[in-house]
């Protein structure tokens, strides 16, 4: 049993090696066990609907009870397009929720608002959007994007592909060329055969 726990701990730590631990840690006057239970029930579907781009993405949580950590791997097709974690740290009578966001190849956080992706998973920046995920979980309410801080109009490919998705009802796929709707990609494939697909280097190298 103890070996299993230790194994889980090691896996959790390994999964987040290279993650930056945000300075803007969130304190809640909620005990750590309760806070963790609320995070486990966080409205990840609401978060997804509010922030996703034009391709379907899937959140696969891994829950580490020992460290009170949840890590979500975000996938599309057979590729991991993002990852983030939330970690409960006891503090006084309450809890601090630490966001754990992996580093990008340039040393900054993934989806920090400056990253460029050909097939983005969600709107940037991630950190304030995650804060609302945590706030909503702690208040045991649905995710509410209206509570996000003003981030200006988003003119990225994410926003335009999201609009295409909503307008057509058809998501594009990670195996479609960047900027093409799935319908356009299928038409191009039928005319020209296989198409070159850009691949994003989302994560930086795992550090020591």
């Amino acid at each position, binding site marked *: 049993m103890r070996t299993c726990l230790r194994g889980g701990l090691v896996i959790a730590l390994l999964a987040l090696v290279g993650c930056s631990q945000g300075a803007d840690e969130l304190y809640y006057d909620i005990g750590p066990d309760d806070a963790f239970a609320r995070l486990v029930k966080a409205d990840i579907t609401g978060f*997804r*609907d509010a922030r*996703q781009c034009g391709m*379907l993405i899937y959140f696969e949580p891994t829950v580490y009870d020992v460290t009170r950590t949840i890590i979500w791997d975000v996938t599309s097709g057979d590729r991991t397009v993002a990852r983030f974690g939330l970690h409960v740290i006891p503090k006084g009578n309450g809890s601090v929720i630490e966001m754990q966001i992996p580093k990008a190849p340039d040393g900054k956080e993934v989806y920090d608002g400056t990253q460029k992706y050909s097939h983005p998973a969600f709107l940037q920046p991630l950190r304030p959007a995650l804060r609302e995920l945590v706030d909503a979980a702690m208040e045991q309410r649905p995710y509410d994007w209206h509570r996000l801080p003003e981030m200006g109009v988003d003119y990225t490919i994410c926003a335009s592909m999201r609009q295409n*998705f*909503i307008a057509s*009802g*058809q*998501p594009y796929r990670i195996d479609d060329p960047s900027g093409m709707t799935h319908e356009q990609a299928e038409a191009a494939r039928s005319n020209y055969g296989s198409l070159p697909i850009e691949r994003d280097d989302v994560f930086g190298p795992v550090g020591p």
Partner: protein
Amino acid sequence: MKSHFAQWPRSLAALALLTMLAACDDTNHYPTSTDAARAKLVGTTIPDIAFGGSAHSGPGEATADGVQWAVEIGPADGLGGDPVQGTGDKVMMLKAKLVAAGDGTDLTVDLTPPPDVDPAKFKALFDQHPGMDRMFRNIVQEQADSVLTNRPFSYANVSASMALAVLSELPNIRQQLDDDRKVYEQHERDTMDQAYDAAK
């Protein structure tokens, strides 16, 4: 204190508009017979500029007690967009009622529903939007006055009531935007749910 000062310009503007409108008596007297007044008004049309391109009036038609103009939905929404559904449908009747008074005619204005619109609903609509009621009355009053005094229709004479109508409609406009936003957000969620369900 600061916030009181900040509200002054808006309050003063609204007061000024109300004062200007209060000066517009609902009854105008003209030194002409009712028949002559009717004859001058029949066949005239209210300039489209009065409706901002969103509607236009048909020619004035003689009625038992005066003249009426049918207001129809215009070909555009006033914003340069696509043609509006229901173009040509009558939405209201603007009436100038003529009553012999002394050696002339008293003219009052009224808004009535077209035959296929429920009068109770029509009244309720304008009860909820008094600024719009005032604006349309002001428009027909200006139309009649300009014709009967042989001068062009003056947009300046109706712009105050238009401004007041817009001001009074701001809460409704805001509510409409909120409602539209909620509908769009629900559409977004439904679209996504369907796409995820289809991918299972």
